[in-house]
């Protein structure tokens, strides 16, 4: 039920790796085993113990938490498998794996949290532990980025704390199981909303709080950045969903117009993220900025607050998790093999590492939103939602950003396949020619990427696939009034 | 400090001062004064010796170790007296209620526990003053 946090043993490398994978797998299977129960509309609210009067650590299971938990544990499983090879030549693995699994635990904790307080506890736990992942490289740069990350995290945590206290003060409870807590708008409630926006938006890389993200994600080891981008960003979005539907109510937000704050920020996030991504030369930085803009879609979907839009948002959480993981893992594979990070140097790499770059291109195309990949589906649904809400402007935004996506992904993909290394005859590029005589990444890494790419296809090709229907069901469930 | 007049005077005066100090301590419950002032007077007399003769003479009168032992002992005696009151069934430091023998009002032994306590406190104060003086003048410890 509750994912058990396990510590990998430090005794031997092999054992540790196996154990880490096994833990992730067990978590995944455990989570999956809840599927039947959840789809049947089941909900569980479980109080573990009371920290303070009316303030307890509790667990809760419903459709939304199931979706995300399943997603998270799946990606985690794959990333852990990927890490085994990737991390083999890195230092301090004894620290890396336990932290990885611990983060998974707290991440699952976030998704299964039964009230804001435990959500907050796990959220902080995850953010702080993830710090160790961020600075894993221990370079000057990493430490700097890590420090930024840490400070922002703590600011976000404090904002959450503030918001939570206001909710507790106004509503007398912070449980997510009672449905809507705050019914009336007031200055304090607005303050609380803004605080939550700051706290969760921080994590989700929302403008203007995204500053930590482009620094932190690239410096982490690639599997970790895949997780950071693919899963941990989503915890912020998840938190916002919870707040919007279970603390406030959609009707109330719409009536008060507060969702417009979110919408405006989301639009800025989308456009800004895409635009800045264009100017980046480091591949991982570009991916990180792209994450910002993609999370903007999710937030936009949330701010529109109707069925289609929310379906789109939830589905986009799924699809982005898959896509971004592939991208980061592929980038990681390239860096691992060649040590190159600058995009201009990657010309022709598709010939040496066809599978890796193949996966990369699939994901990039999905990002752009080319049918029949999953990115298209989520954008389509989002656009439908925007139209439903009489907001054609948002559709325009989506289109513009897709265009921008194309502008910054295609220059990676196309030269990788169709140009020879060192085409543009700059002298220093010649040095790399030798290094390009590289083989593909290890089979294990490839398998992971291929599996993810397959999922991208599957989710895109069949509109009634399992993820989409889950997202649809979740949206309905949420709009029906959240918890009962 | 080696002054003839001071020496002779102090040699004359010191016994009287000491007796007066003891008197004040013992009669604390009958007349003005008590353990604090009496102890101070007694202690001051000891210091006077040290001042008017020299430090060795003073420390011969009451060695340092003795002084610090007396200091602790005085306080302990005070506390124990208080505890005895509890043992005898009264409150802490209670006097008559705990059954200390009370004399007739106005006579020397008329105050039960207070009398005992006063003596202890007097010892404590006198020895403390001596210790403090040496502590400052010798400046070590």
């Amino acid at each position: 039920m509750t994912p058990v946090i396990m510590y990998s043993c430090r005794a031997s490398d092999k054992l540790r790796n196996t154990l880490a994978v096994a833990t992730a797998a067990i978590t995944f299977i455990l989570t999956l085993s809840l599927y039947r129960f959840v789809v049947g509309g089941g909900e569980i609210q479980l109080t573990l113990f009371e920290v303070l009067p009316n303030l307890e650590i509790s667990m809760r299971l419903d459709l939304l938490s199931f979706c995300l938990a399943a997603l998270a544990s799946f990606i985690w499983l794959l990333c852990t498998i990927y890490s085994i090879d990737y991390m083999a030549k890195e230092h301090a693995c004894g620290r890396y794996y336990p932290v990885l699994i611990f983060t998974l635990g707290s991440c699952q904790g976030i998704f299964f949290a039964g009230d804001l307080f435990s959500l907050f506890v796990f959220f902080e736990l995850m953010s702080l532990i993830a710090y160790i992942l961020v600075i894993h490289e221990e370079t000057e740069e990493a430490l700097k980025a890590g420090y930024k990350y840490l400070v922002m995290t703590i600011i976000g945590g404090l904002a959450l704390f503030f918001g939570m206290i206001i909710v507790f003060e106004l509503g007398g409870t912070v449980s997510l199981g009672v449905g809507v807590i705050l019914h009336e708008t007031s200055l304090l409630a607005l303050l609380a909303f803004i605080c939550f926006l700051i706290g969760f938006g921080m994590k989700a890389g929302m403008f203007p709080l995204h500053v930590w993200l482009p620094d932190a994600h690239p410096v982490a080891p690639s599997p970790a950045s895949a997780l950071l981008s693919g899963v941990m960003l989503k915890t912020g979005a998840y938190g916002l969903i919870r707040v919007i539907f279970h603390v406030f109510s959609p009707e109330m937000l719409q009536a008060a117009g507060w969702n417009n704050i979110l919408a405006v920020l989301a639009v800025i996030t989308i456009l800004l993220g895409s635009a800045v991504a264009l100017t980046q030369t480091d591949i991982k930085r570009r991916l990180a900025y792209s994450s910002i803009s993609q999370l903007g879609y999710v937030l936009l979907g949330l701010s529109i607050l109707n069925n289609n839009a929310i379906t789109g948002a939830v589905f986009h959480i799924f699809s982005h998790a898959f896509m971004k993981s592939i991208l980061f893992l592929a980038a990681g594979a390239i860096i691992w093999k060649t040590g190159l990070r600058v995009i201009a140097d990657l010309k022709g790499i598709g010939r040496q590492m066809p599978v890796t770059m193949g996966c990369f291109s699939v994901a990039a195309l999905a990002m752009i939103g080319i049918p029949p990949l999953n990115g298209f589906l989520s954008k389509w649904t989002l656009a439908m939602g925007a139209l439903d809400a009489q907001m054609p402007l948002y559709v325009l935004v989506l289109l513009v950003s897709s265009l921008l996506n194309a502008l910054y992904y295609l220059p990676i993909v196309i030269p990788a396949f169709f140009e020879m290394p060192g085409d543009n005859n700059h002298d220093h590029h010649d040095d790399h020619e030798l290094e390009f005589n590289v083989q593909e990444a290890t089979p294990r890494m490839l398998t992971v990427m291929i599996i993810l790419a397959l999922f991208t296809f599957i989710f895109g090709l069949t509109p009634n696939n399992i993820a989409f229907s889950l997202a649809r069901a979740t949206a309905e469930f949420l709009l029906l009034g959240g918890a009962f | 400090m080696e002054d003839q007049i001071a020496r002779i005077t102090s040699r004359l005066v010191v016994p009287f001062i000491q007796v007066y100090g003891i008197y004040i301590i013992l009669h604390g419950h009958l007349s003005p004064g008590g353990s604090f002032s009496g102890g101070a007077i007694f202690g001051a007399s000891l210091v006077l010796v040290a001042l008017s003769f020299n430090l060795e003479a003073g420390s011969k009168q009451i060695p340092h170790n003795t002084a610090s032992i007396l200091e602790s002992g005085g306080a302990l005696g005070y506390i124990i007296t208080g505890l005895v009151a509890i043992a005898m069934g009264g409150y802490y430091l209670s006097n008559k209620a705990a059954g200390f023998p009370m004399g007739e009002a106005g006579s020397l032994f008329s105050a039960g526990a207070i009398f005992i306590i006063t003596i202890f406190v007097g010892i404590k104060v006198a020895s403390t003053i001596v210790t403090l003086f040496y502590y400052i003048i010798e400046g070590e410890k």
Partner: protein
Amino acid sequence: MIDILNILLLLFLIVCAVGVAYIRDLLSAVILFSSFGLIMAIIWQQLSAPDVAMVEAALGTGVISLLLIAAISKTRRTE
């Protein structure tokens, strides 16, 4: 009549205190302070608190001055 005596004593007290504050020779300040203490003792006697007066005379004047002089002898005499 007794009031006037008291007031005079009090005035003397203030003078002593101000003097202590302004004299730069520490030994003189200590002597002034001990006279301050003695006057204080007299005032307390006037205020019908003989035991306090006694303690002040013994401790406040005697012992403190003694300790102060000892300390000054160990350190510096002028401010």
